[in-house]
C-alpha cells in the first residue's frame, strides 16, 4: 500500500515560521484529518505538497517517489489532486468546461492532431465530454453543466471544484476546508462523497474547522498550531487532548 508521507516538512516566510518539522502520513483508502486554529499553517502544507510553494526543509514522498522539489504539474501526474480554500474555478467558463480540464493528464491525442484538427482530436473531445457528464452526474451537477461556474451557489462551486480534482483520477485528494460555508444537508452529502473516495482506494487529507465533521469521517487526525504538530491520533484521543483544547481556546481569544 502506498502512502503520501511528509517528513520533517518545514516552511519559513522570511522570519515567519509557517510550518516546522511536520510529519504526516496519508495512506490510501483512508480519510486523514488536519485541523488547527486560523493561521496554524494548514494551507501552507497543502501548497507545499502540491508544489505551489517551495519547501524550506524536509521531504515529501508518494510511495517511494520523492516529490519534494517536483514542479506542480508533475505532482499532479504523481497522483495528487487538491481543492482550494478560496474556490478557484474559471468563473466564466461553463461547469462542463471547468470539470473537463481536470481530465487533461489523461488526454492522449497528439499535439499535431490538436493543431490540425484531426478526427482524433474531435473524438477525444467528445469522449471527454461524455466522461465529464458522468462525473457531473455523480456529483449531482448535471443540470448546471452549461452554466458559467462563477454564477453557481457557493456549495455547488465547491462541488464543481471537487469534481475537477477527481477528474484527474488521483490516488490522493487534498481538500482544503471543503465544507466551509455549507449547511448540514450539503455537508452530509459531501461526507458521503468523501467516504466514496476512501472506498475507491484514494487517500484523503481533509482540512476542516468543523471538528464534529472531522470526528465523524476521519480515522486519524493531526492537529497543527503555530506550524507545529501538537497532537495526533484517533479523533477521540485528539479532541480530549488538553494541548488541543487550549490551542483552540487560545486561538479563539486572539
Amino acid at each position, binding site marked *: 500500500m502506498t502512502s503520501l508521507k511528509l517528513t520533517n516538512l518545514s516552511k519559513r516566510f522570511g522570519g515567519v515560521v509557517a510550518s516546522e518539522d511536520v510529519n504526516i502520513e496519508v495512506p490510501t483508502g483512508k480519510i486523514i484529518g488536519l485541523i488547527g486554529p486560523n493561521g496554524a499553517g494548514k494551507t501552507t502544507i497543502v501548497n507545499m505538497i502540491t508544489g505551489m510553494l517551495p519547501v524550506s526543509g524536509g521531504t515529501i514522498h508518494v510511495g517511494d517517489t520523492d516529490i519534494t522539489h517536483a514542479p*506542480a504539474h508533475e505532482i499532479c501526474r504523481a497522483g495528487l489532486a487538491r481543492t482550494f480554500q478560496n474556490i478557484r474555478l474559471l468563473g466564466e467558463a461553463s461547469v462542463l468546461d471547468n470539470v473537463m480540464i481536470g481530465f487533461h*493528464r489523461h488526454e492522449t491525442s497528439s499535439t499535431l492532431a490538436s493543431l490540425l484538427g484531426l478526427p482524433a482530436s474531435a473524438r477525444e473531445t467528445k469522449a471527454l465530454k461524455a466522461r465529464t457528464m458522468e462525473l457531473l452526474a455523480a456529483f449531482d451537477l448535471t443540470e448546471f453543466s452549461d452554466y458559467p461556474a462563477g454564477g453557481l451557489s457557493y456549495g455547488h462551486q465547491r462541488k464543481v471544484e471537487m469534481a475537477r480534482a477527481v477528474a484527474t483520477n488521483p490516488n490522493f485528494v487534498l481538500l482544503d476546508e471543503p465544507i466551509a460555508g455549507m449547511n448540514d444537508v450539503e455537508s452530509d452529502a459531501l461526507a458521503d462523497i468523501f467516504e466514496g473516495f476512501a472506498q475507491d482506494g484514494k487517500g484523503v487529507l481533509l482540512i476542516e474547522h468543523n471538528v464534529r465533521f472531522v470526528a465523524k469521517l476521519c480515522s486519524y487526525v493531526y492537529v497543527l498550531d503555530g506550524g507545529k504538530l501538537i497532537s495526533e491520533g484517533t479523533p477521540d484521543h485528539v479532541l480530549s487532548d488538553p494541548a488541543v483544547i487550549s490551542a483552540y481556546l487560545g486561538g479563539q481569544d486572539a
Partner: protein
Amino acid sequence: MSNFIAGYLPLFDLYCLHVGLALSQFIVLRAGVFSLATAAFAGIGAYTAGILAVDLGAHPVLGVLCGTLMGMLVAMVLSIPLARLRGVYQAIATVAFIQICLSLNIYSESITGGAMGLNNIPKTVGTGTLFVFAALATYMIWAIEKGRLGRAFNTIRQDEAVAASLGISIRKHQMLAFAISGALAGLFGSLEAYHSYAIDPRQFGFHLLITVLSYVIFGGRNSVIGPLAGAAFLIILPELARPLAENRMVIYGIMLILVINFMPKGVADTAIDAIKARRLTAKRGDSA
C-alpha cells in the same frame, strides 16, 4: 463592376495578411502570455523570405517555408527566457525584442539593406494565395480552440495555479503557443514580402504592434471570431469616409481606450457571450 472589385482588392489583401498576424497575436494572449512580439516575428519571416528571394533567387515556396520556420524557431528560443517573466515584464521584454530586431536590421545594411529596406522582391503572391493561407490559419486556430490545447491554454490564462494543479505544464504550453505565434507571423511576414515588392524595417516596428494588438483587443481574445472581426472592422471603417481615413490612427487609439474600458472582452466575444446567455435563459424557461 470589375473596377469596383479591383478597387477593393488591395484592401482584401491587407485583410488576409493582417488576419494572419492578428491570429499570431491572439494565440499567445490566449495562452496567458503577454507577448507583443508578433511584429518582430513577422519582420523575421519577411526578411528571411526577402533575402532568399533577392540574393539567392530562391523559389517562393522555399522562401515562405524558411520564413515560417525562422519565425517559429526564434519564437521558441525567445519563449525560454520569457517563461521566467510575467505580465508587464513580459510585455516590456517583447517590446525590447522588437527594438533589438529593428536596430540589428538597420545596422546589418549589407544583408538587409538597412534603413532603405529590401527592394525588387519578385511579386509572386497574389490575392488567391493570401486568402488560402488566411483561411488555413483560421482553421488551425479554430481547431486548437476545440481540442486539448485550447482547453489547456484557457486554463493557464485564467489561473496558472489551477492549471499546474491539474497537471498542465505551463512552460510547455506557453512555448507551444509561442511556436505557433512565431510560425504564423513568420508565414504572413514572408507572404507580405512576396506580395509587396519591397519591405523596410519600420514596417515591423511599434506601429505594426499597435495595429495587430488593436484587432485582437477590438474583436476579442477568446474566440477565433475575435481577431477576424476586429481586423475586418478596423480595416474597413477608415475606408468608409475620407475624414475617417485621414484619422485612422486616432480612431484606432480611441477604439482601444473605449473597448478595453467598456467592452473589455471585445466586440465579438461580448456578442457571443450574450447569445449564450440568451440560450441558457431560454433553456431555463423550457424546463421550468
